């Protein structure tokens, strides 16, 4: 079988691309390795920066940095992508937006304020609570859950003038373990030991709440008198989050919202699961749990990719491919001692932010020389060759920079010292350069592969954590990659 669109990577970019490809009537498969990085993130779709209206700042960013992924799209296209995302998620994982896609302001776990463009329903009431300095909000912490402090959040809000916020704590022992029967059957110590023993993790609490949120609501009922809203750490259910959240609101008679904390992050996990479910229902195929290790490339066209499944490698053939494997964190780019590599197609990795961390950017000619070999073997031999050259280049560059071991033996000189965090930022801008169609290009702008579109964190030239742009780039470039792939398919 030949797919119209083969998507490599099941993160936010890949899944958005799959949704759009399916909508365009394309036969689509998503091939993925591990769980996506969505699972550790807050579930908010941040667009860019902290301004109330992010669009002027975005325009300035693009004009100053034409290599930024947002420069690949017009503002209309970005908004179209966001609208599409909201529309498709409205049943399983509803998101809210403001007129003109301006930013919401919501409270953080530190009681400060953050901006985001699209808010999942679970966090939505946070914005009205944060909008009114006179709001009365009860922040509920969970005893035995070490990742959230209601007092901290409340003190932060008080410091910013929100005097109506208050903290409370609820013991988790009112919750049932998944698998426990409804009428609290006593089973020799199992659950009670759990309650006072090791820490509870957010996913476990979420599952327990799904099972017995009514008990939880019972405990809370007396506490919420006089409050407009109740805030919780983001643990209100997993697959049945909406039931739990809406149930609590109905039962308590107040608005309920979550505040995201650290990983595992329920809002992100819910989004990932909802996207998967949505796609399955729409007829998208999945090949999950296996890394893509090589590709069949002839004359700058990819014909198939090889996933390393147990027993024998699986070949997935397709007309168009979308590379959405993520960056260093997602696993699409592997940082090595002497460089970094793109793991599927061995595309050259550019690193615009690099100063001390040397990235080799081998000329496209060398890649072109080797594509034939790649096609023959499907194997890593050619890739190794490229990797060796990358390493050699990196090595040379490194020697120039830091001195050879021979002249190393002298007092510290400033040229050796780098400032630590810029260093990391430099690696986090590493990625693949693309043209306006999201096709990978070399330094001169020549297209390296004509039917492979890149989307999301694999793209070079931005730092999602510093900019607050990760999810926005993922949704908009994923959407666009599907459009481009679909368009190419139609022309043939």
């Amino acid at each position: 079988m030949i797919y119209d669109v083969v998507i490599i990577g099941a993160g936010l970019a890949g899944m958005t691309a799959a949704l759009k490809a399916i909508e365009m009537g394309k036969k689509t498969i998503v091939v993925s390795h591990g769980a996506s990085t969505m699972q550790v993130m807050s579930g908010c779709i941040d667009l860019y920066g902290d301004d109330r209206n992010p669009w002027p700042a975005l325009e300035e960013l693009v004009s100053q940095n034409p290599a930024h992924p947002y420069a690949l799209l017009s503002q209309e296209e970005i908004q179209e992508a966001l609208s599409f995302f909201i529309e498709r998620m409205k049943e399983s994982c509803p998101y809210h937006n403001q007129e003109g896609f301006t930013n919401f302001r919501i409270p953080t776990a530190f009681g400060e304020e953050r901006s985001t463009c699209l808010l999942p329903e679970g966090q939505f009431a946070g914005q009205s609570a944060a909008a009114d300095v006179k709001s009365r909000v009860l922040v509920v912490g969970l005893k035995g859950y070490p990742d959230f402090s209601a007092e901290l959040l409340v003190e932060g809000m008080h410091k910013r003038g929100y005097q109506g916020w208050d903290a409370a704590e609820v013991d988790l022992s009112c919750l049932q373990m998944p698998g426990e029967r409804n009428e609290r059957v006593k089973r020799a110590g199992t659950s009670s030991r759990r309650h006072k023993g090791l820490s509870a993790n957010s996913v476990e609490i979420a599952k327990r709440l799904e099972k017995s949120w009514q008990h939880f609501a019972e405990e809370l009922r007396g506490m919420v008198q006089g409050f407009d809203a109740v805030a919780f750490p983001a643990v209100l259910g997993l697959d049945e989050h909406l039931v739990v959240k809406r149930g609590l609101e109905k039962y308590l008679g107040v608005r309920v919202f979550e505040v995201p904390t650290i990983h595992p992050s329920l809002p992100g996990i819910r989004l990932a699961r909802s996207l998967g479910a949505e796609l399955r229902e729409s007829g998208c195929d999945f090949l999950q749990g296996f890394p893509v290790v090589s590709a069949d490339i002839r004359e700058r066209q990819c014909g198939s990719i090889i996933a390393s499944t147990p027993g024998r490698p699986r070949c997935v053939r397709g007309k168009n491919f979308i590379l959405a494997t993520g960056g260093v964190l997602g696993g699409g780019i592997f940082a090595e001692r002497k460089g970094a590599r793109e793991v599927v197609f061995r595309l050259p990795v550019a690193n615009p932010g690099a100063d001390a961390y040397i990235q080799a950017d081998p000329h496209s000619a060398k890649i072109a020389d080797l594509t034939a070999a790649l096609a023959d073997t499907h194997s890593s031999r050619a890739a190794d060759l490229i990797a060796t050259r990358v390493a050699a280049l990196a090595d040379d560059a490194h020697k120039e920079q830091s001195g050879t071991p021979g002249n190393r033996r002298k007092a510290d000189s400033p040229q050796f010292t780098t400032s630590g965090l810029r260093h990391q930022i430099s690696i986090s801008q590493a990625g693949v350069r693309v043209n306006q169609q999201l096709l990978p290009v070399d330094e001169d702008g020549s297209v390296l592969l004509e039917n492979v579109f890149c989307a999301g964190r694999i793209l070079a030239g931005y730092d999602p954590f510093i900019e607050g742009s990760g999810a926005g780039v993922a949704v908009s470039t994923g959407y666009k990659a599907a459009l481009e792939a679909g368009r190419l398919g139609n022309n043939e």
Partner: protein
Amino acid sequence: MVRDGLRKVVLYMDVNIKIKTGVLVIGGGATGAGVLWDLSLRGIDAVLVEQRELSSGTSGRCHGLLHSGGRYVVRDADVALECYQENQILRRVAAAAVEETGGFFIHLEGDDPDYVDKWTNAAENAGLPFEELDLSDARRQEPLLSKAARRVFEVPDASIDPFDLVMINVQGAIERGAKVLTSTKVERLIVEGQQVRGALVKDIESGELYSIEAEVVINAAGPWGGLVAATAGVNLEMAYGKGTLLVYSQRLSNHVLNRLRLPGDGDILVPAKTVSLLGTTDLPVPSPEKPKPIGGEVESLLDLGEELVPALANRRLLRAFAGVRPLYNPGQGAGRRASRGFAVIDHEKEHGLSGFYSVVGGKLTIYRLMAERVADLTAASLGVSTPCSTKDVCLPALTEASPPQDKGGSSEGSHADGISSDRGNSDGGTLICECELLDKDAILQAARRLNRFTPGAFLRSTRLGHGPCQGTTCIYRAALLLYQEKLISYEEFQEFIKRNLTDRWQGIEQVLSGDQARQLELARGIALQNLQLRGSKQEFTSGLPRESHGYEPGSKDCSQGGSGGLSKALHGNKPGSGSEDSKQEGQQQ
């Protein structure tokens, strides 16, 4: 000039004399702690001051290798023999901090074969025990050893935890009445006529200046010794050699692995608790402050380390760090050729200044001997005839601080044993650090045991953030815990996270590859995206927060002008501390 000097003396004596003691020991590393323990055993009243935290200088930034002497035997048989003798003593008296791993000296193909003979001859002459092992036997014991190994000799090297070592020395001394003041920096020695009478010190946290009057002052400040002596107008010719080490996420060998050749870079791998340390380099540096690993060093260490243990290439590197060797070599300079021996300087003989001794040079393995020598001189000058007994009296095992509410009685064992047995109905078993398995109780115990609570001392004493995740999860959790226990304020909360994360990240920067690069991206994502750490975006873009303002020794780990609350919360004896907490009473005891 003389008049000037006198005026100064008068001025300093105006400053509030807060403490009077027999001996003032300067420096909270292994040497200072050893001196304090030695003096306390002789019944001499002593106070130790440390500008930062215990083991925050050279002692805490080394391999933690208890040398058998093999490394130095060819060049300096005396130092080698001292090492061996001390090795044997410390195995006995400091058993709580020593892990008897044993060591291998390995001759690799291509290394100078003549050196092997030189080494065996020298070791025989010096009386160091060693035994040649059959290659297959050595491989069986150390499966990751290079195939290029040609000859292997077993020696009695051991792994020693310098943090625990300093801690037990200090703890033993405190039990015998000694005093320890951390975050207390010597501004200037007080000289009256030709006699050193004590020191003017500054409490780094409160900024308070006061003087400590002592009959004898012992300068055991390691690489800072020259600076201390200089305040009394004495010029010690110190040289500084920076050594960089790499930390791997697991134990890769059973023994200490030494390369059998002229001592050089990257030729020792030490298994230490849950990690392995590869080192070191040796670069002359102009100052003992802020030693930092640099790219070239790390590359060279990796190359050399892989020659000895090729498997290092694909093991997870946690971080790199550097320490500064204090070298005392009048007229010789630094480097591997510099003697690693030590000297005790009686400044009365050398510079006509009585009541003042410096102990300089040396190394961790012989810290006890260094302490003994200087304590001998001190005791003689004070007319105390009790001989040194640190060879025979065992150091106490590290005990847990026991706040009054601790119901379990005194539980013994190192701070590392995180999950404790039964915690009753409390949630004390809540795991804070999943890498080092530290629970809530262990964290709070460690916080209360500190003489001064600073984030750096806290992290060192718990090993929090020292595992593979390098603080991604646990620093946030620990901060929440400390906040809820009112050990840090709301303002200090974010500062605590930021300081500690950036500190951890700095160590990762030079080893940024593979899983650790991923880990760092995860940590950045969590801190910047999920938690939205305040001010972080600006600071993290423009470089290190720490370097954006002037660095001050002593301010390393405490927030600038912010830690008052920390120490207040923990120092029940300080005015202004809250009274609601029974924990504070526990701290006073």
